[in-house]
């Protein structure tokens, strides 16, 4: 793989990670801590919204973020032909070889 190709893959990777980390910051430190008092003015059922974000919502958000990341990176890997099926196969073969 050429250097420019690798560089543009890395830049695309950084964009994905950067965007997701902004959302990560917003749902945890933003909604769960800094804006929690304001969000408490709204309610969902018995929960005040700020309290719910702090103790429930942010955690669900984290799970979703990681799975979005997995999908986006899969797409990127396919686009740059960095699929790892082959890689995994090579690795498995190496594991079969006797080690010294």
């Amino acid at each position, binding site marked *: 793989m050429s250097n420019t190709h690798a560089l543009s893959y890395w830049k695309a990777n950084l964009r994905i990670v950067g965007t997701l980390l902004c959302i990560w910051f917003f749902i945890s430190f933003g909604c769960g801590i800094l804006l929690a008092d304001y969000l408490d003015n709204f309610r*969902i059922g*018995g929960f005040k919204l700020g309290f719910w974000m*702090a103790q429930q919502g942010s*955690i669900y958000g*984290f*799970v979703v973020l*990681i799975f979005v*990341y997995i999908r986006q990176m899969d797409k990127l890997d396919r686009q740059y032909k960095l699929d790892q099926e082959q*890689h995994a196969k090579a690795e498995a073969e190496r*594991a079969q070889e006797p080690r010294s």
Partner: protein
Amino acid sequence: MSVQIWTYLFIFLSFGLYIVIALWSKAGSTHDFYVAGGDVKPVVNGMATAADWMSAASFISMAGLISFLGRDGTYYLMGWTGGYVLLALLLAPYLRKFGKFTVPAFIGDRYYSQSARLAAVFCAIVVSFVYVCGQMQGAGIVFSRFLEVDITTGVIIGMAIVFFYAVLGGMKGITYTQVAQYCVLIFAYMVPAIFISLMMTGNPIPQLGFGSELTPEYGGGYLLDRLDGLSETLGFGTYTTGQKSTQDVFFITAALMFGTAGLPHVIIRFFTVPSVRAARISAGYALVFIAVLYTTAPAIAAFSKTNLMNTVNNAEYSAMPGWFTTWERTGLITFNDKNNDGRIQYVGDAATNELTVNRDIMVLANPEIAQLPNWVVALVAAGALAAALSTAAGLLLVISTSISHDLMKRSLAPHITEKQELNYARAAIFLAVLVAGYFGIYPPGFVAEVVAFAFGLAAASFFPAIVLGIFYSRMNRQGAVAGMLSGFTFTAAYIIYFKFISPELSTAEHWWFGISPEGIGTMGTLVNLVVALAVCRFTPAPPQEVQEIVHNIRLPGEHV
């Protein structure tokens, strides 16, 4: 059947299961011993990571801590889950591509420095050791309370079990026992939670239950509104509003997140999967499995706090149910009838409050308080032991690999054969189990304090060094070492000063920017970053082959 017979039965069955798994998954090579052969399925690794991560503290203490902290308890919840986002996005895939066995190996190779490797060995051992003592102590407490054997016997039984499967199977044995332990601990955590949720709100899902209305027997109305009302009346402050300063909560949350992402026993789990893609996926699964417990904990906190206040406040002491006296005997509940009216006043004002409740009660005694069947009560003991042993095993492995691989093979004795290396690894685990057991039996008073230490130090030393090592190829040895040293020293000094030298000064007006010692790891991380970047600017770039390593770990798949 009595609670005790049920407890014996559950513990016997679960321990038997761990031993069978250990016999079945013996390690034959260092590759098996360090990374379980490197072909663990993502789901399996996710489950093992969850058990590895959720310790005696998560299982026994966290819900109780939250019930006393109210909304501020979020720093445990978000801190200990949000760190997985950092781990998944910034560390796990790249470290997997790097493909070595340990965290010190990465630090040593990436920063082409033997002293950086040894510094990392030192940090990894200190952090893991502090942590493992707490687990042994947790196991001892569970044994002594539920089986009424003394703590020493309890710790020795726990040590024997961990020793057996960790020494025999290394990472391979640990991985598959951790999967079994996850199942045991999550079942033991969820069953009482579901029962209580059903009883109090009629909703079987605790995560929804604590935002629902109470059943008529409990007086109706939203549970959290009731809890807020009760807390305010008794002078504890509103449950669903923060009581601590915003910046302190912010900094503690960040320190726990960075610390989570920097803890070696969690990181090494991602070396066991076959590919970069599998590392990403297994981080996702790990967080799902962890989130099951972490979203249930605040529900248990709210249920048990409401239940406790309803049961005890202004009630007659002589009319207290059986569990009250049982736990009074263990010293976890103490009642002091200050105004001699024979009733319990449980209020926020320290002068008139008559009841002190240890936070661990919230999980340990919760099933009894809610009058659940005996087998549910007994389940909690097996779950707590699973949580303690699974984490202890993961930590012991970090200590052992740091010694046999990084210290012996890579530094002191490079010519040892694989067989000798494996023997060193087993001997190191053996020693570590003994020392951890000793501290479990004779716990030093500072265990609780040093756990905050472990996170702060991991945050201030490993996390920035690894992230910079991946994302900044110009980062060199001088920068990284200076950064780690200054971050570590800064954090350690702040914590030692406020926790050990002048604990009486540990109040918000003396803290820097109102940041408590628990949250100072965040500052330590920043200090590390700033120092590393500054020193790096004035020192030569790393050698070409190291920059090649960095470019290589950024790409998944096989191409060198």
